[in-house]
């Protein structure tokens, strides 16, 4: 299977938007639907760097992309790896699939093909600030970010 022409156009568009707002993000393994990822670094207000990976869905743009924080290894305030939490409501995490932290950003019932990678990454950017807030204060990510309604 290959990308359809609409999907190829959409991928080009996504990358053009990202080049403006998240210029460090690049497309990898772009030939194979289901394998393609968009990866790049994000810097928090405090100056810490996070490598974020967005898995491009094979049915782009019709389903929610999986978003993971590849590095550093994230720990909670008490030193426990976040990945061990699995699915976590207070920390806005979904069940990890690749032994790295997976962020809950848009829920399937709130997904729409109008949502671009750039909008997804904005949410991840907000999650990172909330995570650092947690490290400072002990409040969970939930305290800083509103949940998507089910």
């Amino acid at each position, binding site marked *: *299977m290959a990308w359809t022409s609409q999907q190829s156009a959409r991928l080009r568009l996504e990358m053009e938007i990202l080049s403006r707002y998240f210029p460090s993000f690049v497309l990898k393994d772009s030939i194979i639907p289901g394998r393609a990822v968009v990866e790049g670094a994000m810097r928090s207000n405090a100056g810490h760097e996070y490598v974020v990976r967005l898995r491009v869905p094979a049915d782009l743009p019709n389903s929610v992309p999986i978003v993971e924080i590849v590095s550093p290894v994230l720990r909670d305030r008490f030193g426990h790896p976040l990945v061990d939490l699995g699915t976590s409501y207070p920390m806005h995490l979904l069940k990890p699939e690749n032994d790295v932290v997976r962020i809950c950003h848009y829920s399937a019932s709130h997904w729409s093909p109008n949502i671009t990678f750039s909008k997804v990454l904005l949410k991840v950017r907000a999650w990172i600030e909330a995570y650092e807030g947690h490290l400072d204060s002990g409040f969970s990510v939930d305290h800083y970010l509103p949940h998507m309604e089910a």
Partner: protein
Amino acid sequence: MTPLVYVLEDQVQELLAHTRADEWIEGPAYAFDDWTVFHAYTEKPPFAPAGSLCRCLYTRADAAGLVDEEHLPHSLDITREPDGQPVLVLVVSRTPDGLPACQALLVTASGTTAAAAQFVPRRSELYSRNAGLLEVSALGHKRVVIVGLGSGGSPVALELARAGVGHFTLIDFDRLELGNISRHVCGVNDLGRYKTLAVRDQVLQKNPYADVTTMELNVNQALSQVEDAIGASDLLIVASDNDQSRFNLNQMSLNTNRVALYGRAITRAAGGEVLRVRPWQGPCYNCVFSAGVGQGREEEMSQKRQALSVLPAYVEEEKVNAMIQVGLSSDIMPIANMMVKLALVELSRGMETGISSVDEDLVSDFYIWANRREEAYANWPAMGYKWTHPSILRWYGARVGRDPNCMVCRTPLAAHLET
């Protein structure tokens, strides 16, 4: 009463053409109601038959005359059935003017009784009663793809079969469960079966000559296969239960330039809506449902798999279970029926038929229906005697247009960068 035997005329014609005069062949027959009604076939019918299985033998007689009891060959030994069950003997022939004829005998240990044979007419005659209302011969050549064979899609399939649509592709990967039965066209004797196959059997009950292809797969995971099926069809009907599949099907309908009809019920089937998408002419599914049209009218959750697929994984099981709130079949039927009307209008386009004038009325692409003054319709006035305000149990066509910012149907896509 004289026992009654129904035989497919097409099968008898086939038998007359390909059997020697002295040959005996065996086929399945099904008995009903204390051996008073029989359905006989020369080979196993394409749908799941009902009734209790009964032995049936066919032979052909010369056109000069039909055989009777005394001429039955003793070598067949047909009276030695266990439990004393009767054996059906059907003697088929051609009348002098070439029409098929059939004589039926019911043979038991105690003797032979004559039964009345009736033909189930051939394909060309099955829908003659509809002639004039629908362009039957043309609809017989039409192909529809139906995605989702649950409480919404299954009655749509059946109604289109009744109207004479001849070709179906049924797509669903769900099996019929106990909780589906009260809202589904299939019953307990189809429990556990794929909905596609169970509905195919129901379609063949209405039109034994329909051509029904089934695909037991998840449309989100078989994109190119499903798109090929849609490309080979005249109309796409979407009665699936999740947005991801509707977004994917929307893209396929645009890619293949096939009209698509989307129907859904809202929570507890308090109401529902039907969207018609004429690709590139009117709004697409994304134009309408990404613009917040569906907000406040949450989709009905009728089973756990559906709820789990759209809810964030951290939602507790208790809440998932609480979201499964199903409505009555009678509340789903108006939505299914509206989809059928829109489908027949689309399929009859270009032909002068009895429903052509409806096309002038169905100018809207989006229709809203309320069953009860609940949920999104809670503030509607009571129906009373007025017809000048919105009320339950009436269809409303809403004016919806293309969204100039739609990321799916705006062309070219790159124009998004200008905004």
